[in-house]
């Protein structure tokens, strides 16, 4: 009879702090938990009493990797609450910087957090010794995407030029064209990335679940749209609570969510499953090379879906730049508060999944309440469900391998743990 005890304290190569606990006694799975031990962050409380124009700057500090995602969702929530319309120029620029962040976050995850597992090394450092070209490529892509973000939003991290109603700084046509050249040149690096992932021994694991993401008819949705699920449900963004249904669990400082099933998954794989048709042709070709088409139900392939999104974002960025250059850029008058408050919800599908910001703003423009539902938080229940399904399948393997598979499973989700913990401490059992 099998007895297995996996206890990974502070899992490495994920953002934030979490422990994996798996306890199998006599072949029976007794305990299977992802314990989030990250300290609470209190961002929702921090926003209370602050003027509306500070929200995006404060909430962008929730994360250093997805700061633009938080800022964008924040701005959309504020604009929704105050009935602010943004220009098409602003929409194009926001999409462009968002693409930059998607590429930046995904390349970090795929090359530096996930790849070492496949190469049998503990981190990217030994990988740099044995496969320097691979690591150089990762740094090159990261530099490109970081420069793209800085060009559009004024800074690589924490997008200072993004404001309610628009941008306080615009890139020049010259800068846009120079960036376009670099993006075109990056196609080789994208091809190499897909080729790299094609050759990896992805674990075989299937588990049906519900996939939740934003959706739009005419584009691969990252900002705005409607909430869609692979179980066929669709909601307007303000109705997000009907999807999330947040609840507490004793072993975690982060809340869990559930919708139609016991859990659902958000992130690149969810977007891929919902919005495959809207992918750029080159991204679809990449998907074909990787043998992926909806419905993909192997959580490990979330990282592969990220690589497909990288290809898409490079191509779509080129198209966005073409459109911006064609239109020319115009300085637009800044938004002025109209003396009327309101409640609003904004949503973006950031690198790790669908994100909601909801604010209540009063007649003086001060934030009276805020609610942020973070993608990683929405994945915890699904991560645990995957763990429960995977463990029995690999019980016969050596203990070290079981532990490694558990770690790889959680890493595949690209969890951003410090983003997701903002509830007060609960007592551990």
């Amino acid at each position, binding site marked *: 009879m099998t007895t297995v005890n996996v206890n990974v304290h502070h899992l*490495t*190569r994920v*953002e*934030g702090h979490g422990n994996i606990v798996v306890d199998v006694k006599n072949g029976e799975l007794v305990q299977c938990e992802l314990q989030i031990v990250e300290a609470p962050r209190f961002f929702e409380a921090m926003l209370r009493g602050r003027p509306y124009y500070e929200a995006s700057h404060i909430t962008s500090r929730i994360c250093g990797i997805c700061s633009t995602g938080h800022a964008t969702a924040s701005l959309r929530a504020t604009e929704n609450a105050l009935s602010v319309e943004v220009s098409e120029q602003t929409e194009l620029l926001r999409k462009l910087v968002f693409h930059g962040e998607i590429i930046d976050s995904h390349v*970090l995850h795929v090359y*530096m*957090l996930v790849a070492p597992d496949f190469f049998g*090394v*503990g*981190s*990217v*450092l*030994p990988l*740099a*010794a044995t496969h*320097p070209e691979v*690591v*150089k490529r990762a*740094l090159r892509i*990261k*530099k490109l995407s*970081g420069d793209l973000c800085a060009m559009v939003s004024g800074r690589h991290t924490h997008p200072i030029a993004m404001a309610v109603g628009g941008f306080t700084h615009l890139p020049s046509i010259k800068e846009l064209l120079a960036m376009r050249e670099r993006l075109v040149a990056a196609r080789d690096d994208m091809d190499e990335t897909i080729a790299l992932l094609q050759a990896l021994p992805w674990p075989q694991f299937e588990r049906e679940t519900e996939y939740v993401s934003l959706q739009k008819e005419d584009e691969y949705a990252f900002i705005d749209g409607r909430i869609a699920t692979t179980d066929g449900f669709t909601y307007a963004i303000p109705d997000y609570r009907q999807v999330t249904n947040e609840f507490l669990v004793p072993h975690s400082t982060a809340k869990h969510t559930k919708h139609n099933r016991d859990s659902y998954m958000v992130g690149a794989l969810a977007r891929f499953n919902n919005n495959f048709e809207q992918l750029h042709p080159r991204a679809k070709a990449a998907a074909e090379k990787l043998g992926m088409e909806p419905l993909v139900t192997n959580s490990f392939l979330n990282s592969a879906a990220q690589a497909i999104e990288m290809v898409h974002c490079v191509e779509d960025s080129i198209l966005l730049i073409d459109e911006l250059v064609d239109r020319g850029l115009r300085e637009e008058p800044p938004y002025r508060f109209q003396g009327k408050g309101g409640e609003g919800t904004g949503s973006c599908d950031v690198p790790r999944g669908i994100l909601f910001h909801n604010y209540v703003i009063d007649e003086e423009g001060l934030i009276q309440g805020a609610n942020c539902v973070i993608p990683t938080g929405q994945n915890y229940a699904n991560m645990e469900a995957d763990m429960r399904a995977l463990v029995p399948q690999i019980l016969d393997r050596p203990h070290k391998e079981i532990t490694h598979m558990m770690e790889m499973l959680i890493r595949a989700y690209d969890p951003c743990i410090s983003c997701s913990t903002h509830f007060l401490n609960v007592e551990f059992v």
Partner: protein
Amino acid sequence: MGNALWSNTLSSDTLVIGLGNPLRGDDGVGMRIADLLAGYRLPAGVEVAQGGTRGLELVNWMEGWPRVIIIDAAEVGKAPGGFTRFTLDEGQLLGNDQHLSIHAAGLREALLLAEVLGVLPDEVIVYGIQPAHLDWTDTLSPEVEAAVPQVLKSVLDELMAPGPVACG
């Protein structure tokens, strides 16, 4: 072609990077000195950057520079405010690291990675300043505050010094 005794391709091109978190007490000393340096008329080819808490991006930053000077709070075994200037040849930062945490990747990891990738500058000089504390505050301790002019002077002397003259 030069021989081993001197180099006739000596370049004064130098990137000075101040590192640290200005909100963590003495950890902000590198950024403070970088900030002060920016107010001086520095020789052509010298650039000053505020690196903050950047990690692996430093690899990109350093690439292509013949000489990099890094200024940071560091455990150098001295009384608070004391500082040490050392080069990477003196081997104090390098070592094996199997458990790199990307989220916490900092200078050490960036230098390791740069070396492995073959993009480490020819000269990397580190000014390590011993902190008194790394508390949550945006001010330096009195000891480190007092050390700032001395560190600044040492860095400036190093930047302004004329290069060796090839003889013979």
